[in-house]
C-alpha cells in the first residue's frame, strides 16, 4: 500500500504531553533501571539528525516525497527527545544540548569519515543504496516501536505508558513510510536486495549502538527484551523485516540479543 505523504505532512505534529500529569512522577517515581533506559532512548531520539545526515548524502532527498518525510520525521523524533527529557527532568536528570554535543564529539574519526563513506557508496551503488537506507530505517523504526510499547507495558505507570503510546503511534507512521519505500525499491532490483541483505546481516545493530556505550546498549536490551515475552516481540520485529523482498530468513534483531548474551 502506498504511503500517503500529503496526509502525513498535514498531520505531523510534535508529540503532546502538556495534558499529562507529570506531577505523578513526584509521588510515583520511576525506578533507576527504567530511567537509565529512558535516558538512552532520549539521546537516540535527539541524535536522529545524525542519521538524517547519512540519508541526505544519497540522492533520495531530492525526491519530493522523501524530502517531505525526512523533514517531518526529523522533527517528530526531536520532540520525542524533548518529551523523554521532560520525564527525566522530573527525576532531576538533566539532558542538555551541551551533553549531546559532547557525545557526538566523542565519536571522533569514525563519525567524521561516515558521510564520506556513505556518499562514496551512494555514488558507486547509485539508487540501490537508497533501498538499503530504507530497509535499515524500517528495521530501526520497527524495533523502536516495539521498545516503546514494551516499556509502557513493563513499567505499568499510567502517565509514562500514555506518553510512550503516543510516541509509538508516531513511530508506526515512520515504519509505514520506510517499509513501503523499502518494499518498492527492493522489489524492482535484485542488486538492491543483495546489497540490503549484506548490509543488514553484517552491519546492523540496535538503534544507538555505535553512539552509546556498549554497556548501555546491553542494559536496554536486557531491560526490554530479556525473557520469553521479550524474545517473542523481537521475533515479531524480525518477521516483519524478513517479509521485505530479498530479506527472507534474516533474524538480525534476535542475533543482536544473542550476541549480547540476553537470555530468552
Amino acid at each position, binding site marked *: 500500500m502506498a504511503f500517503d505523504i500529503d496526509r502525513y505532512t498535514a498531520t505531523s505534529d510534535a508529540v503532546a504531553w502538556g495534558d499529562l500529569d507529570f506531577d505523578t512522577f513526584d509521588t510515583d517515581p520511576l525506578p533507576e533501571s527504567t530511567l537509565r533506559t529512558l535516558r538512552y532512548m532520549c539521546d537516540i531520539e535527539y541524535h536522529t539528525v545524525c542519521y538524517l545526515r547519512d540519508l541526505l548524502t544519497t540522492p533520495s532527498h531530492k525526491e519530493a516525497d522523501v524530502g517531505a518525510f525526512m523533514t517531518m520525521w526529523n*522533527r517528530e523524533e526531536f520532540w520525542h527527545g524533548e518529551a523523554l527529557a521532560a520525564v527525566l527532568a522530573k527525576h532531576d536528570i538533566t539532558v542538555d*544540548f551541551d551533553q549531546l554535543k559532547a557525545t557526538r564529539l566523542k565519536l571522533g574519526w569514525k563519525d567524521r569519515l561516515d*558521510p564520506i563513506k556513505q556518499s562514496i557508496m551512494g555514488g558507486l551503488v547509485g539508487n540501490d543504496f537508497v533501498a538499503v537506507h530504507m530497509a535499515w530505517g524500517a528495521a530501526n523504526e520497527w524495533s523502536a516501536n516495539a521498545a516503546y510499547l514494551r516499556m509502557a507495558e513493563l513499567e505499568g505507570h499510567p502517565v509514562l505508558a500514555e506518553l510512550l503510546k503516543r510516541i509509538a503511534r508516531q513511530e508506526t507512521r515512520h515504519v509505514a513510510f520506510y517499509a513501503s519505500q523499502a518494499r518498492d525499491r527492493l522489489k524492482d532490483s535484485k542488486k538492491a536486495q543483495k546489497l540490503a541483505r549484506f548490509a543488514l546481516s553484517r552491519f546492523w545493530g540496535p538503534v544507538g549502538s555505535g553512539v552509546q556505550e556498549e554497556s548501555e546498549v546491553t542494559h536496554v536490551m536486557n531491560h526490554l527484551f530479556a525473557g520469553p515475552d521479550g524474545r517473542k516481540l523481537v521475533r515479531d520485529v524480525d518477521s516483519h523485516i524478513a517479509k521485505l523482498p530479498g530479506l527472507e530468513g534474516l533474524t538480525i534483531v534476535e542475533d543482536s540479543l544473542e550476541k549480547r548474551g540476553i537470555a530468552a
Partner: protein
Amino acid sequence: MREFARTVQGSHRDEIDAAAIASAGLAADAVHLVRVLRDLERGTLHRMRNLLVTATHKDARVTAFLTSWAFEKFWIADALDAVLEAVGADTAALEGPRRRSPRERAERRGPVRRAIAGNFAGTQLVAAHVTTGLIDEWISQAAYRRLGEAASVLSDLVTRLLALKDRHIAFLSEDAERRLAANNRAVKLTRKAIAQAAWPIGATEIPDADRTFFETFVFGGTEGRTAAARIAERVAALPGLTSAHGDTVAARLAS
C-alpha cells in the same frame, strides 16, 4: 531555542485567500519570483546536508534549530505553491542550464569534498554556517519585501513570512555574534565562506536565467541597491567582519 521550537508554524494554507489572489491575478514577474523563492525554500534539505556532513551536526543546539527551521521552510514552500496554484501557474521546479562561474566552485561541491574540507576546518566552521545562514535570511527578507511591493494581494502572506524569518534571524544573529566574537578561527573561516559564497544560498541549484532574473528584480533597481547596501552594512557590523566583506556580499547580489 526551545521557545522557537515550541511555536513553529506549520501549514499556512488556511490563512491564504486563494480566491482573492485568483481574482486579483499576479503579474508575470511576481509569478516568476514566487517560483524562484519556492525552489530556494525547497532546497533547504540540500543546505542541511551541506551543514550536517561537517562538525556542525555535532552542535545539538544548532541541529535543534535546523530541525524546526527546515520544518517552517517546508511549509513556506507549500504556501508559495498554494499561491502558484491559485493563479493557475506552473508549479514544476525551474529547469535550465546552471551558471558555471569558477568563483562558485566551492558552492557546487558534493558531500564528499564538503565533508573532507569540513574535517580540516573543524568545529569552528559552525560560525561560518550560522553567519552565511544569517546573511541568507536578510537576503530572503529583501526578496519577500520586493514580492509584497510587486503584488499587493500577497501582502498579508508576505507579512507572515517576514515574521517567520525574523525568528530565524533572532537565533542566527545571536549565535553568529557570539561565535565570531569568541574565536579568531571562527572569523577566519567565516571570511573564507563569504569569499566563496553564491547568494542566495542554494542559488547554484537554480537555473542561470532565473538567478539573473532574481538579481535584477530584487536587487537591480534603486530600491534594490539600497536593500543590498543595508545588508552590506549589517554584514560589516558583525564581529571580525569589515565593510569589505559587506561589499563582497552586496556586489554579488546584483551581479
